[in-house]
């Protein structure tokens, strides 16, 4: 673990190599990226196993010392970090491999891999940061990586707009995070997690301040994890290449917000209000996004809304003091959602469209992708025996035990929605007759199916590390040796929750089958019952439009006003200043006549001036 800092370094090396030699390497760039992320993965696995038997490892050094002012840097391997290292490097490695097939033939192939390296570096760096400042630096770097990757097809207007939107929306959250961080530093005189927790524990920070900083930091997480109301960038971010969506917008970056809340959990758990806020926002986002997912017709957008909804689940878990539940779902979700995205990419690769209305009947043509997609769908729907079932059950139990019956019901309904829209997606893509014009549909190359198979296996078995039947290994391990977290460990929920959850998800699947599989219920059953509702959902509750009408309009109004001031006032002043500086420069240059006499004279005048000032004010007279 002493050398865990090497893990983020490998992708950085990949980024640098590809930046310098990418043009010459062309598609061989893939091997550089794949091998170096594989190195990260192997190392992460070793660190994870080492962490099972050894205590938390922290190392830090003074990064910058000026007088009495110290800033430290370093890295930390605790349970959460070790687990995240493994998840991130695994998904990154698989995506690197998958992209070799998916991006084949792209003109800027090497640039794509360079960006992937940069992003992976930033994400891994974020995960092992031991203090808030370092976290913040990598947090922003992750944002940059995501911006570059979403806007990878920069010649597409939508991609450019989406990249910009993602950057700006998450920046709004970052402002909150920054203020929260600065307030914490002001209160505790440190950026170190351990110092902050100690200060909170010792009651050096007032209750109001804890609530305030926690909520401000949560705003940062809301932006990054696409929670309501800052969720709108995530579906748009689907303009990026599909492997990117799997890496960034399913498994890693969007989970960073959840990770931040989890790693600052002792701070959050010190404030009831802060936890409540997290739970309510999470629960609301879960059902809100799930309901939008019901009617979307773009395969990636359905998955995007499902991601938003699942992230809401995680927040709900953390907010209900279910630390283990949140982290557990973060892990299982990373696997099955990455699987779903990669499978979706494989479908898109085969049919060259993202509109599910133009798909159908692909089950027979895509012999591997189909079953894998089904596994992912079953897992996310919470069908028993798959990973999603266990983690979702844990969350429901946490919400119930945490005393949030309303949120519990919301989560249950969201689970029903999830099962429904995911199977709607499945039936529309893989069963029935082929719609649209599908020629030359073929299975993806093995370089693409291999990562999906690995994720498929994980999506099935990952849940068994923490089950009520075979022991709660993960939960016990995560809170081991940490008193602050021990109280928020595994929740042994009542059995009826598990049964209820199963029934609900099976109901969702059954309904989806009736409508889209067997077609015994009209497709317009939902929209028929109320055209209004359907339109509202299809337009994603008009949140974008709402922003357009209110925030954007107000901002534009302000900006017109400011521009007015800018043109007439600021610009005048700026022109004055630059003119003055330029004039000063010109005078200075003119003084530089090349005459030595002038130079000598200037020196003497300068000396004389100082002497006169001295004579008038200095020594003798005082």
């Amino acid at each position, binding site marked *: 673990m002493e050398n865990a800092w090497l893990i983020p370094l490998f992708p950085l090396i990949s980024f640098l190599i590809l930046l310098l030699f990418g043009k010459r390497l062309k598609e061989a760039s893939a091997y550089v990226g794949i091998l170096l992320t594989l190195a990260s993965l192997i190392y992460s696995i070793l660190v994870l196993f080492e962490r099972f038997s050894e205590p938390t490892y922290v190392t830090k050094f*003074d990064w910058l010392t000026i007088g009495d002012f110290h800033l430290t840097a370093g890295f930390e391997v605790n349970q959460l970090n070790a687990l995240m290292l493994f998840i991130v490097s695994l998904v990154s490695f698989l995506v690197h491999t998958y992209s070799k097939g998916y991006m084949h033939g792209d003109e800027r192939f090497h640039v794509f891999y360079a960006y992937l390296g940069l992003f992976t570096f930033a994400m891994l760096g974020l995960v092992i940061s031991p203090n808030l400042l370092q976290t913040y630096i990598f947090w922003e770097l992750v944002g940059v990586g995501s911006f570059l990757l979403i806007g990878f097809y920069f010649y597409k207007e939508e991609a450019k707009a989406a990249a910009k939107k993602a950057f700006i929306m998450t920046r709004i959250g970052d402002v909150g995070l920054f203020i929260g961080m600065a307030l914490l530093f002001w209160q505790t005189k440190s950026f170190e997690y351990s110092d902050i927790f100690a200060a909170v524990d010792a009651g050096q920070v007032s209750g109001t301040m804890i609530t305030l900083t926690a909520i401000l930091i949560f705003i940062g997480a809301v932006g990054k994890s696409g929670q309501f109301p800052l969720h709108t960038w995530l579906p748009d971010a689907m303009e990026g290449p599909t492997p990117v969506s799997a890496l960034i917008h399913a498994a890693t970056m969007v989970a960073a917000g959840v990770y931040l809340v989890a790693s600052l959990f002792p701070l959050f758990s010190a404030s009831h209000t802060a936890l409540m806020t997290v739970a309510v926002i999470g629960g609301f986002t879960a059902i809100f996004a799930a309901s939008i997912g019901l009617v979307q017709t773009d395969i990636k957008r359905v998955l995007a809304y499902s991601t938003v909804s699942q992230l809401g689940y995680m927040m709900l878990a953390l907010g209900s003091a279910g630390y283990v539940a949140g982290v557990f779902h973060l892990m299982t979700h990373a696997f099955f959602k990455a699987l779903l995205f990669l499978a979706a990419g494989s479908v898109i690769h085969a049919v060259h469209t993202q509109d599910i209305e133009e798909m159908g009947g692909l089950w027979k043509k895509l012999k591997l992708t189909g079953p894998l997609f089904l596994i992912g769908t079953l897992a996310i729907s919470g069908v028993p025996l798959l990973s999603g079932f266990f983690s979702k059950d844990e969350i429901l139990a946490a919400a119930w035990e945490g005393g949030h019956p309303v949120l519990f019901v919301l989560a249950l309904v969201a689970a029903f929605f999830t099962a429904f829209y995911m199977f709607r997606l499945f039936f529309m893509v893989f069963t029935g007759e082929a719609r649209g014009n599908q020629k030359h549909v073929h299975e993806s190359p093995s370089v693409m199916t291999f990562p999906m198979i690995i994720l498929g296996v994980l999506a099935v078995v990952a849940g068994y590390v923490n089950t009520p039947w075979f022991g709660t290994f993960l939960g016990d391990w995560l809170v081991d040796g940490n008193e602050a977290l021990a109280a928020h460990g595994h929740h042994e929920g009542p059995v009826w929750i598990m049964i209820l959850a199963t029934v609900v998800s099976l109901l969702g699947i059954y309904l989806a089958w009736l409508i889209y599989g067997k077609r015994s219920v009209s497709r317009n059953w939902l929209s028929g019952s109320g055209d209004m509702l359907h339109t509202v959902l299809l337009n994603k509750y008009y949140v974008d439009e709402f922003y357009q009408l209110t925030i954007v309009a107000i901002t534009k109004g302000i900006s017109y006003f400011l521009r007015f001031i800018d043109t007439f006032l600021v610009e005048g002043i700026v022109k004055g200043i630059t003119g003055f500086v330029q004039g000063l*420069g*010109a005078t200075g240059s003119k003084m*530089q006549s090349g005459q030595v006499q002038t130079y000598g004279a200037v*020196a003497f005048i*300068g000396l004389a001036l100082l002497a006169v*000032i001295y004579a008038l004010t200095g*020594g*003798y007279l005082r």
Partner: protein
Amino acid sequence: MSFETLSQFNWSVMTPEFIILGVAALLTIMDLFMPKGQDRRILGWIGIAAIAAAMVSVASLAGGAVVSILDDTFRLDSFAIAFKLLLLGGAGLVMFLAVSYEAKDGMEEYRGEFYYLFLTALLGAMFMASSGDLITLFIGLELLSVSSYILAGIRKHNLKSNESAMKYVINGGISTAITLFGMSYVYGLTGSTNLLAIAQSLSGLTDGQHVYLLGLSFLMIFVGLAFKLAAAPFHMWAPDVYQGAPTPVTAFLSVVSKTAGFVIVIRILLTVFGAATTKGPGSMPILLDMQDYIAFIAGATMIIGNVVALKQSNIKRMFAYSSIAHAGYILVALTSLSSNMFYSIWFYLLAYLFMNLGAFAVIQIVTEKNGSAKIADFAGLYRRSPGLAVVMGILLISLAGFPGTAGFIGKLNIFIGAFAGTPHYVLASIMIATTVVSYFYYFGVMTQIFFRPAANEDRFKIPASILVVLIVAVVGSVLFGVMPNIALDFMNNNLDILADFFS
């Protein structure tokens, strides 16, 4: 002084100086006896080896107690060691530039002199760092200056080079006269030239008239020495001399000579005027009383350097003004007199050594290729040589003081130091404002490099010796920007300037 006293001195503390002196003498003789047509680059390589050996021996002297020999005229303290390392490192990199410098304009015949004059100049600078007496300080200063005058004019048939040397001599003469005049007051009041003895006799000064005279001598010494720093009002020689001198010499003047200037300023001002009291023992030292004057010169230097640099079209002139500006930033640290002052100044000079010498290496390559030194010649460098362009980009970013580079940490040290003790709000604001101004001219060069089309597509050939400088410069600029505490740990573990300086 009998032979016995002489032989009892601990001569080993002078090993670095002896190495440089011996090799300089050796090169003189070798140059004399070498056949006329033979390539004299070998002399340059021997010089580099000598500098490396001297660096090793300086480093090995670190950590010991303060030793002073020759009746306290030569002292080896932490301050001397820290700054000698800078001087030697800077001179070593300059020598790498010098061996690959294409001899033109009558320099062919004097190539040997070119190398050993660098060594004698360096020797002068090293003596300044180690001297404990006004006389040896002055001798060191003159050894450095006279060698530099010749170096500036070494391209005998080049008019610009001649002009440069001539202006340098005249301005140098004026400055020396002013400095000496100021020193004479100090001698007149104390009857001694030994710095510690002076400090001793001035520490109980009560007579108001003497204090007044010392104040005047402070101004004269400081203004006179401002010449070496290229600080206002004695900065005007710099652009002309920098432009006309061969590029390695310009690099030497802007880094090594400037470092030596700060060495002598700190030595004299702190020992003499830091000890001299205004109203009897225990009262405020004259140095603090005169703080406003240093602040005034620092402010003027920053403003003049940065503002006039905006208007330059010649890259060497632009760098002359930029080097004036950097001297201004360092003077801010001297003004603030914080406990961190030695380290801030040392670190800034270290960072400046890397970024400025690296930039001059690029300038040397580009100007030799194009035969002129216009900023416009950098147009399209990115297309012609991406590696060189990226290197120059990093160095310019560091010079501008962006986070992640040594230049940023250096400025941050000084900036925070300005608020230690009595805060210097005005000076700190000038520093920020002029730093912003500096972005314009540094990024002007960047624009040329990255966004302007190239006049031709000729590639550059980068000689091995310059490659060494480029690598060292970039690694140094980035390393000390990313891990600044390496330098601090080195200082803390090996040297204690504050404790040594006044003992």
